[in-house]
């Protein structure tokens, strides 16, 4: 098997008065879980990949493209990064219908043959019947499914998910985890998944980056799961 370059790589340092982050890790195809307790820097790393937070120094590449390189003075603004972001609490646009929400990214990204098709995404995520509804009328699980569809349809080069199951009950968590598995296996988009829950990591991750106090404590593959 040939050595493929990693789909993304992160080298970032950030120092603030109340926390500091110093991480280096490569992603793998499939789902990379950033796993650690609250305050370990998981969400900040996600924000630095998305470009909503700048590292003091570092180099972030996705799909061979440099998004941040502090030495070379490169910083691609968030709207040109082609990242899909699924937030903890969905963050659907309340003034738009579900259909308008999931097509939002399409207005700004050129249609590509490689982009996931809308009917395929809505079918996989089971939101065909929700397209005319307003976000306020959806349940928590439905909102996350719509948020996932919205991110996928913006033709992302990488999908970032920030504890997307944290507000859901066990039945809904199970249901969404099944959908995330399908997204991971059906769409060839690397996923960075932030969580502090072991069963999510066990079930979803191909690679685990374990974080502690802003540092990478260990990087393990799915085969070493009993260690986490």
């Amino acid at each position: 098997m040939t050595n493929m370059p990693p789909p993304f790589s992160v080298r970032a340092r950030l120092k603030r008065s109340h926390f500091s982050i110093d991480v280096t890790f490569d992603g793998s195809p499939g789902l990379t879980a950033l796993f650690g307790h609250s305050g370990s820097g998981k969400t900040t790393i996600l924000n630095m990949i998305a470009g909503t937070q700048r590292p003091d120094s570092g180099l972030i590449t996705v799909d061979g493209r440099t998004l941040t390189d502090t030495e070379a003075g490169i910083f691609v603004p968030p709207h040109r990064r082609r990242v899909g972001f699924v937030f903890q609490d969905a963050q659907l646009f309340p003034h738009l219908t579900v259909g308008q929400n999931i097509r939002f990214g399409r207005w700004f990204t050129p249609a590509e043959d490689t982009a996931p098709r809308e009917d395929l995404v809505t079918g996989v995520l089971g939101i065909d019947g929700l397209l005319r509804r307003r976000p306020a009328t959806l349940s928590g699980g439905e909102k996350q499914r719509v948020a996932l569809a919205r991110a996928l349809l913006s033709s992302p080069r990488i999908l970032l998910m920030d504890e997307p199951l944290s507000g859901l009950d066990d039945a809904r968590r199970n249901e969404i985890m099944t959908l995330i598995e399908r997204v991971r296996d059906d769409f060839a988009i690397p996923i960075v998944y932030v969580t502090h829950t072991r069963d999510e990591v066990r079930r979803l991750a191909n690679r685990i980056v374990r974080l502690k106090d802003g540092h990478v404590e260990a990087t393990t593959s799915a085969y070493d799961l009993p260690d986490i």
Partner: protein
Amino acid sequence: MLGFSADEWTAILLSLRVASVATVVALPFAIFAAYALARWKFPGKVLIDGILHLPLVMPPVVTGYMLLLTFGKQGAAGKFFYDYFGLSFSFRWTGAALACGVMGFPLMLRAVRLSFEAIDRRLETAAGTLGASPAWRFLLVTLPLALPGIVVGVIMCFAKALGEFGATITFVSNIPGETQMISTAIYSYTEIPGGEEKALRLAIVSIVICMLALVASEILNRRIQRRIAIFE
């Protein structure tokens, strides 16, 4: 028509025209200032905030006098607008619209600013990750979500403009057919023997217009709220 004299009709129509122009012209400035105050950090912000709110607390006569000094025929701003745009303000309905706009501006600014401040900024971040540039984020996310506050601000400014008296009479006087609006006409009629009936009629017109504006704003707001359901 409806028992109103020509003078009364002129005052009513002029009031509506002046209040509408004042509100429409003030709106983009209010949106810009509200956004800047709600979102940006810049030196002198507290001072600018104070200056923009001054007409709310200053005696209206003082505001009118300041307008006379700056936008009057001899004032720097007055000369500028006359020389470059052929626009003159003193003793003209345009001056009445300017005075009303200045007086209504802080009310509009406050409503729009509160509305910008209430928006969850993570929605804008979400729009950014979906490819929307800052300008598109503002147009497609921030502005529609601030609409309830903008509607309230527009109605407040319009109502304030309609009832404006002190700044207007100081700046553009009370000339029938040119600058005499409902409130200044009521004042004139109460000074004339036998003018009470006309004053009362105009007072009722004023109340009706203000009530209609408030009801319209309430209906509009409910519709927008139902669409946006921002307080889910």
